[in-house]
């Protein structure tokens, strides 16, 4: 009987949590359009999420492309199809690895910071202070961040795609000797607009998933199980936000891919 009670409690808790996160998301998105527009905050957060993640995106994009070039070459050469390396690298990156790895890297760099910053604001009563000043905390904290993420994620994904294809070119053509003109020709021939649009669609959805989870976890730090209302609560919220964001990126990726292919 106790197990059934526990299961029931956990299920109800889960449903409640899903309801709260959906309401949090809807509140945040609708408040983006409430005047006065928070252009300065959106620019600040775009700088933080976008520009400051540029280095890590370029680095991971380049090495991902290089590894794909290396692996792809040795796999394709067995069938005498090394000329298809450009297609393999570009499609893998644009359709799949670009959006997914960019989102995971941004989660690690910016998502964790969002959760920690908002979590600290919660435990130090700064969110309560906003309420006492009649400032809507969700509009003030979440809305500019989600708008900035919607701008930054697709742009960073595009950069990841370009440097990833270049990374494949570095190993495939410059290191292993595939004809550079063929590599580039295959990239141009095989990549269609629908592939690029699919990648961007994923990055938009990932922006929503990551920002909502990370800001929600920070905002409700005090409700995190086992964490409590202190430094441990913030650390739990930050860890949970990163883990849950990464898991949901992969689940959502599968769902979108299922409908796109």
């Amino acid at each position: 009987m106790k197990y059934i009670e526990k299961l029931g409690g956990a299920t109800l808790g889960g449903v409640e949590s899903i309801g709260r996160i959906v309401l949090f998301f809807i509140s945040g998105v609708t408040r983006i359009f409430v005047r006065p527009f928070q252009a300065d905050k959106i620019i600040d957060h775009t700088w933080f999420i976008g520009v400051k993640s540029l280095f890590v995106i370029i680095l991971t994009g380049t090495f991902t492309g290089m590894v794909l070039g290396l692996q792809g070459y040795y796999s394709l050469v067995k069938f005498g199809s090394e000329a298809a390396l450009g297609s393999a690298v570009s499609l893998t990156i644009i359709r799949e690895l670009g959006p997914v790895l960019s989102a995971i890297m941004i989660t690690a760099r910016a998502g964790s910071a969002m959760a920690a910053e908002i979590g600290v604001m919660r435990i130090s009563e700064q969110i309560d202070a906003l309420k006492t000043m009649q400032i809507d905390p969700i509009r003030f904290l979440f809305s500019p961040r989600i708008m900035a993420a919607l701008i930054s994620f697709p742009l960073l994904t595009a950069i990841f795609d370009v440097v990833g294809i270049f990374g494949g070119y570095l190993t495939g053509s410059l290191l292993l000797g595939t004809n550079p003109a063929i590599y580039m020709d295959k990239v141009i021939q095989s990549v269609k607009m629908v592939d690029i649009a699919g990648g961007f669609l994923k990055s938009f959805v990932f922006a929503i998933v990551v920002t909502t989870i990370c800001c929600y976890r920070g905002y409700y730090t005090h409700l995190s199980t086992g964490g409590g209302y202190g430094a441990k609560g913030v650390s739990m919220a930050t860890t949970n936000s990163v883990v849950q964001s990464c898991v949901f990126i992969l689940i959502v990726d599968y769902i979108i891919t299922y409908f796109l292919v």
Partner: protein
Amino acid sequence: MTLPLIQFVDIKKNFGANQVLKGVNLSIYKGDIMVVIGKSGTGKSVLLKHIIGLVHQDSGQLLIDGKPLHTLPKKERLFFKRELSYMFQENALFDFLNVFENIALPLTETSRDTRSIIEEKVTTRMVQLGLGPIGKKFPSQLSGGMRKRVALARALVTDPKVVLFDEPTTGLDPVRKKKVHTMIKEYQEQFGFTAVIVSHDIPQIFDLAQHIALLDEGKIIFEGTKDDILHSRSDTVNAFIRGDEQLCPTDT
């Protein structure tokens, strides 16, 4: 007879199984300085948070000018809340904003004032509170006393009609405590706001108070003036203001 500006009528509040307020009755009059004293953990901050709307009662009524707050039309309720200001125990300053931006925040986010008017209002408050040259510093670069003053400046920048102070002198040395008390008294006289102060600074805070309420075991067990409390015949009241551990035991 004058109606109280804020009146607690049999307010009860539970947090889970813990009943913090067990039927609080308290009247706060316009232009008054009401000091709420009591042991730590008896719900003094919870009492203040009811006024500002951060906590809502489980039962009982909070009356504003004689009308229950929850029955007021939304517009009137918002109007009342805009006239309130709250100074937090730990200041609750925003780490990512500098001193000037912290003080200006309630104006930049909620008023329609132009940038130049906001600058003028903030600068005036900063000068009045002796914060002149630190506008570009961040809260982490300031001393505890300075942070208190920044928090006070932020609380006063909107010209509120009611200011709620949650232990405004926690962590300050006796000299700075005295300064903060003098500052509150001076500004209250200058601007005429109603002040509700939660404090442990006994007996110094009595010099500031026009009315004093003692919260004990979730109820107001004493309400009166400085003279009333100093001449009270209640053992509990006397034990508390003397800090008598035998007659006024604490949990720890």
